[in-house]
């Protein structure tokens, strides 16, 4: 096959995708920079030298000359929390982008299939039954996955072919059902003890995230992230009409199931460990589309980078801005909603 030599710009451009090198460099470097800077932020003051010295020392198992408090702040309090933010931010953004692609609708968020409502119910139930932290996380994960399984089953009623329309409707039903159950739990919960705990949990927080939590969810979220990266180009095809997509040679049912599995694992695991963090899965894909375009081959990795940075910066605010911890959903909404409005005003609803 001859390359098309008469198109000069084709021959001249080594980068066929059209993303400028500078953009790629920024997308790779930005998370690293924010990651490093985040270690220096927090209510407790640790000097940059101490931050560096502690991390270096831990990495190479050197004896520490820094006070125990400083070491604890860096290694126990900030490190796992920062990593969790990167992981969850990246995962939720990628899941949001993948689902928006699969449904062909830019207004979709990871909650659309009911996973957050299910996970929220699992956690609320566990809190009501005075379960341990482990039980809360496990039940959130379990019910989050159950909710999506129910959604999928409903979408296949009456020989339905789990077309995206049926999935959306089924997701609405499942979400409404589990939200109703959450309301019941809130109603019967002791208003002084259980109810505030449930409410706060549902608002999302990265507080007290531990290395154990990371061990538990990193493999799950990581699996989902890797899966979406592998599938990213095929998301372009999934975004087309059913017959068109089939005619290009993919098995749309199998592909959709894979996307749903990856996105559900990411979202359920995220919710189980830090509650419901809204707006990230909805807004970040839009921002990334403006930066790198709608081609999912570039969009998915861009969401990984931008989503990680976004949630990390938001959580830095949540834990450092004032003496009290600000719930994540409040901040993501306060920042996300006006920004989304700004995006709409600039783009006029055209997602280019």
């Amino acid at each position, binding site marked *: 096959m001859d390359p098309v030599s008469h198109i000069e710009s084709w021959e001249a451009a080594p980068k066929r995708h059209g993303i400028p090198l500078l953009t790629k460099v920024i997308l790779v470097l930005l998370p690293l920079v924010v990651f490093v800077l985040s270690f220096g932020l927090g209510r407790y003051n640790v000097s940059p030298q101490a931050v560096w010295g502690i991390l270096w020392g831990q990495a190479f198992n050197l004896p520490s000359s820094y006070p125990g408090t400083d070491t604890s702040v860096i290694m126990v309090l900030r490190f796992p929390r920062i990593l969790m933010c990167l992981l969850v931010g990246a995962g939720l953004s990628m899941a949001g982008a993948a689902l928006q692609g699969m449904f062909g609708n830019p207004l979709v968020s990871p909650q659309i299939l009911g996973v957050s409502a299910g996970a929220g119910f699992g956690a609320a139930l566990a809190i009501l039954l005075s379960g341990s932290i482990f039980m809360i996380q496990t039940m959130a994960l379990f019910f989050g996955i159950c909710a999506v399984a129910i959604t999928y089953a409903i979408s296949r009623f009456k020989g339905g072919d789990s077309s995206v329309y049926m999935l959306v409707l089924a997701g609405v039903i499942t979400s409404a059902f589990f939200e109703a159950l959450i309301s019941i739990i809130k*109603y019967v919960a*002791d208003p*002084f*003890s259980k*109810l505030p705990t449930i409410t706060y949990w549902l608002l999302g927080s990265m*507080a*007290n995230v531990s290395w154990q939590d990371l061990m538990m969810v990193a493999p799950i979220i990581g699996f989902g992230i890797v899966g979406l990266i592998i599938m990213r180009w095929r998301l372009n095809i999934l975004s087309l009409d059913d017959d068109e997509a089939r005619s290009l040679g993919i098995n749309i049912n199998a592909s959709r199931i894979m996307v749903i599995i990856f996105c559900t694992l990411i979202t359920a695991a995220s919710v189980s460990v830090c509650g419901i963090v809204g707006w990230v899965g909805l807004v970040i894909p839009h921002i990334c589309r403006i930066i790198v375009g709608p081609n999912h081959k570039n969009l998915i990795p861009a969401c990984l980078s931008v989503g990680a940075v976004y949630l990390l910066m938001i959580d830095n605010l949540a834990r450092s801005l004032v003496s009290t*911890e600000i719930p994540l959903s409040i901040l993501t909404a306060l920042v996300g909603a006006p920004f989304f409005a700004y995006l709409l005003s600039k783009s006029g609803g055209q997602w280019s």
Partner: protein
Amino acid sequence: MLLSVAIIFTVVGCSSNASKESGTPAVAEKGKFPYTITDQAGRNIVIEKQYERVAMSSVRPIPAAYLAATGSINELVGINPSSMVAAKSSMLAVLAPNIVNLPTGFVEGNETNIEELMKLKPEVVFCLNTNKQEIDALEAVGIRAVGMETNGTDAIELFSQWAKLIGEVMGKENQAGAIIDHSRAVAQKVKEVAQTIPAGEKKTIMFLYTDDGKTIKVGGSNLYSQYWCETIGGINAAAEVSNVAVVNMEQIYKWNPDYIFITNFTETQPEDIYNNKYPGQDWSNLKAVKDGHVYKIPLGVYRWFTPTSDGALMLQWTAQKVYPQYFNYYNIETEIRNHYSKFYNYNLNDAELALILKPSSDAGSYKARTKE
């Protein structure tokens, strides 16, 4: 023993004489119905008879306060379910065993079901002073509503106002007056001693409200925590946040309190703090932990963190923990025994006393006590 009882009676008698001048309820002597009082919603209430059927729909510590103010719970026909849970996991169920049989079903969440309540045929209901709908609804069906205040930091004063109001409503002003006067007197004495503590020796104190492993809440300013700290001559480490505030571990590092007191709203015990039970938290670097100054607040007739009839004991216990060298003129166990004997007419045995001073996590897990 008899001598100390006599001395206590004299002291109480003197102070109650003194406080009669400083404003004990100005009420006509018993038998002269009807009379008018003012509740904590600012309403003028006419008391037209000796009530025999009393219910409490909100404000969790009120049943315990009622016991102290009137001497028994015989008139109670229903209480708030959260108060019931608290009763079962505290000394209240021991002091007034019949309380566990009281109905609680008329309260759903934060709402009082007036029709359900009416089935219990109460004559007077103690409720929240800001809940105008409930007050109006009760009065509309002929039930006397008495509004109770929950705002305030001065736990002794708040309890005193409750006891005074309950005493006026039930015609038990003397009984109520006794515990009010005693509480105020102890508070006064503690304040005086606290003033002698030099500034350089003042300790910072943090009240750990709850810690469930995921969220840490502390008692800030504008809450009873502020009162307990200041009255005994301490400084509230969490004063920069207000009410019950969610903070993270780093903020606690920044405060680095000298003393940590854990309330009975949480299951967390001092061992959990010393042993770093919760993976995402590291308490080991704090001064209070290194010095071994982490304590669980005792649990008496109700959780001592809030205004209760055991408020005097809370002051004495906390003060002795923080400044033992200044508050060395009493033995806390003796004080507790005497308090319970005088005001609840109950002689504590050793096991019960131990359970008060080192409570289990039942009250924090909202389970009924398994013992007794």
